[in-house]
């Protein structure tokens, strides 16, 4: 094995002759605690993301249940106003930032190299660091909550209330710095997804043959690269106002409270698409399997995904309709907000048509994927209603919006995620989730969710404002709130049933083969769970549904799964041309490394120093971060980054 070889003809072998033991040696994570901190295995990182995100989902859920006990009856004093404010703010922050995107990053991280027929993401160490930073920033923000200094101005954190005169404690500082910290994870994760999508695919996987679910994460990632800096900047400006007396939002100088809202919503509106488009992709991926036919309209759905996000950059002002902006601006943003419904119509009817024209097999996964269509429509139309400015002037800041956001978040993120779990759990663990427990899980979640959130449309239409720790009796809101609280607890039981199913099935679930669902995509062509090297020989792809070739009424099988390149001169995988998927390079991939973890430690020290104004600690943290980055980026011979002998 030459370390500085320039070119090679990849060795092609049949799968039966592949050197599996050698590949395992090359790709496996070091055993023991060292391996735990240094692994760059995308499957391991994906599972960590999923588990951590579910923990935050449960934490956020508990916060919600406490609030629902307080709100079940009018004028209760179970919670003080400040406790309630911290609960609703932390609940929002947890669900929207610490659960909703990371869970989708987790599934994408686990699945992408497999569905692309590759061995790893484009940047394995960056992948590890994006997880560690996510974990560290989540802990950072929860430390604040644990010491009674959680965010208390809502997840949207409007100024002037977030400024020091009104909020002197550490609450806003934990939130500001924590969000900047988390933004780093989101950004590097997004960069990884974009480059992986472009380059790390199997030969022959042209752009019209990438699995439909990857369009969702690609779109979300490209958008995040462009909009996360907006919110990071806003939080940085707020932190500066609070620590150093700058005047970004301070009206006593020329500060502008509305600038906060613009910078925040320029980020946060695309963000809400980022947290649903990948999940919609998972529905587009899984639903057809349970309808035993290809998805209706692959190309329209892929285009609609991108169109939604592009339009999504142009609607942020619809969160600001009540701020006194000029009518012309309001008309423009209202029109855009109404029209953005159209790409969603494409996806919804693609799914409906797939069900109608297929043969539905009603598994638990199918139930979650099909029911999300109904929840999507309900959330979508309530969003459409708020898109009309005069109507929004009544609806905004009432429980109608709370109903809307939970229908879209639970309907277009949580339900697809649970469906995805039932669908891909066999691949990740080698065991099936229990179907009977699954049906109980589904029905409690579905009934509970609708019982909890549908009545909120009514309390909103009856004038109940949001973000209130209590409400007066006799305004028509009392019974509705009681029903909502009961529904919330039923929904929580449903979530518990899911966790129970996972725990029970991990040990005793039915053993799954490589492809228990007879699904079409590449991840089902390898064992369950996959080996560390994903594929013993790398597949070559000839169609959109490699494992269904020959059964779709098309020409004879065109993909090559039974034989392919073995690429075993170290950790290697292909890089292809972005559009046609022609093989371009043999990429040398980095192995396990402590640098990502150490970098995160340095960054955590840095942010910790900033929040308590121990500038020496902040500087030391920054220095450690820089050092870790230098070690990480140092050119290595075995990664073919250093000049070979004899050339000059």
């Amino acid at each position: 094995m030459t370390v500085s070889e320039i070119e090679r003809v990849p060795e092609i072998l049949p799968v039966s002759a592949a050197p599996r033991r050698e590949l395992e040696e090359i790709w496996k994570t070091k055993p023991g605690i060292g391996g735990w901190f240094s692994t760059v295995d995308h499957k391991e990182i994906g599972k960590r993301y999923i588990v951590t995100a579910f923990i935050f989902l449960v934490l956020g859920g508990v916060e919600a249940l406490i609030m629902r006990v307080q709100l079940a009856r009018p004028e209760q004093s179970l919670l003080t106003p400040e406790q309630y404010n911290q609960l609703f703010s932390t609940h929002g922050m947890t669900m929207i930032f610490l659960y909703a995107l990371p869970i989708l990053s987790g599934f994408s991280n686990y699945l992408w190299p497999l569905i692309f027929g590759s061995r790893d993401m484009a940047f394995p160490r960056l992948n590890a660091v994006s997880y560690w930073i996510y974990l560290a920033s989540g802990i950072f923000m929860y430390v604040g909550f644990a010491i009674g200094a959680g965010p208390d101005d809502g997840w949207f954190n409007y100024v002037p209330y977030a400024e020091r005169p009104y909020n002197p404690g550490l609450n806003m500082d934990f939130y500001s710095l924590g969000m900047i910290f988390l933004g780093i994870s989101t950004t590097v994760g997004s960069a990884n997804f974009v480059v992986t999508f472009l380059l790390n695919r199997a030969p022959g996987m042209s752009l019209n043959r990438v699995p439909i679910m990857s369009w969702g994460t690609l779109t979300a990632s490209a958008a995040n690269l462009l909009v996360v800096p907006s919110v990071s900047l806003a939080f940085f400006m707020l932190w500066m106002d609070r620590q150093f007396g700058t005047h970004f939002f301070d009206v006593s100088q020329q500060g502008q409270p509305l600038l906060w809202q613009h910078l925040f919503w320029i980020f946060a509106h695309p963000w809400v698409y980022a947290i649903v488009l990948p999940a919609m992709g998972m529905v587009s991926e899984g639903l057809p399997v349970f309808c035993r036919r290809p998805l209706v309209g692959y190309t329209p759905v892929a285009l609609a995904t991108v169109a939604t996000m592009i339009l999504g950059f142009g609607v942020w002002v619809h969160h600001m309709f009540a701020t006194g902006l000029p009518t012309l601006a309001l008309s423009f943003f209202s029109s855009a907000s109404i029209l953005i419904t159209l790409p969603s119509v494409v996806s919804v009817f693609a799914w409906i048509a797939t069900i109608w024209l297929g043969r539905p097999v009603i598994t638990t996964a199918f139930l979650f994927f099909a029911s999300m269509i109904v929840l999507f429509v309900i959330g979508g139309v309530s969003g459409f209603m708020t898109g009309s400015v005069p109507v929004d002037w009544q609806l905004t800041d009432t429980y109608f919006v709370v109903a809307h956001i939970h229908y879209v978040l639970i309907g277009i993120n949580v339900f697809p995620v649970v469906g995805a779990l039932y669908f891909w759990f066999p691949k990740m663990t080698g065991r099936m989730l229990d179907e009977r427990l699954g049906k109980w899980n589904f029905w409690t979640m579905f009934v509970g969710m609708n019982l909890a959130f549908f009545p909120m449309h009514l309390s909103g239409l009856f004038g109940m404002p949001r973000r209130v720790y209590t409400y007066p009796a006799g305004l028509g809101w009392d019974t509705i709130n009681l029903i909502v609280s009961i529904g919330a607890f039923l929904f929580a039981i449903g979530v518990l049933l899911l966790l129970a199913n996972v725990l029970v099935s991990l040990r005793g679930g039915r053993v799954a083969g490589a492809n228990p669902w007879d699904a079409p995509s590449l991840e089902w062509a390898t064992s369950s769970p996959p080996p560390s090297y994903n594929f013993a020989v790398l597949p070559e792809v000839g169609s959109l549904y490699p494992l269904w070739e020959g059964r779709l009424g098309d020409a004879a099988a065109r993909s090559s799964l039974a034989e392919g390149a073995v690429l075993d001169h170290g950790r290697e995988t292909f890089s292809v041309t972005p559009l046609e998927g022609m093989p371009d390079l043999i990429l040398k991939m980095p192995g396990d490394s402590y640098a990502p973890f150490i970098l995160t430690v340095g960054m955590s020290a840095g942010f910790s120093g900033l929040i308590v104004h121990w500038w020496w600690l902040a500087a030391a943290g920054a220095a450690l971060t820089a050092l870790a980055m230098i070690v990480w980026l140092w050119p290595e011979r075995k990664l073919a980054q250093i000049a070979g002998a004899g050339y000059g």
Partner: protein
Amino acid sequence: MVDTASAHGRALTVGAIARRGTGWWGLLTVIATEAALFVYLLFSYFYYDVQFGRGWLPDPPSFRYSLPNTIILVASNIAAWVAARGIQRGGRGRLVVGILVALLLGVAFCVLQVLEWRSLTYTLNANTYSSVYFTTGGFHLAHVVVGVLILLLLLLWSVLGYFDRLRHTPVLIGTAYWHFVLAVWLAVFFSFYVTPYLW
């Protein structure tokens, strides 16, 4: 039958060469996201400007330091470009000299920038203008410092003989980042120093 996009029998390059490979594309995503940051900073500046109209500026900032500094940064970028072209043709000498010149000029930029700030009558928290001026300039200077660090590493790696006609992707990545830093400076310079005279 496998169609033409196949690895069968084809000799493929191993590892990144020039701008092929994941590293270069990774840099492009970094540039996209950092450029977005400066877009939002300048958006904030112009938002304040539009809200207040003329007169929110104390005095327009002076060209005394900023114009020479612009020339210094452009010169530094030319040196970096020469260095990159050099190694693409196998010229190790040009690489080292180019990077060294770019590095020294980059340090000069930092020094002049700090001197300019110290010459100003207002501090960070004097008013909204000063807040956005120093924050934007500060973010840019931070990117320059990172760029200087990158040039230093490239210099070290060049001297250690890591790069040749084939393997020099870090040089392309590092110098491209430096060009990006210049582009940001030109946008910042235009917005803060030139537009006050335009309207």
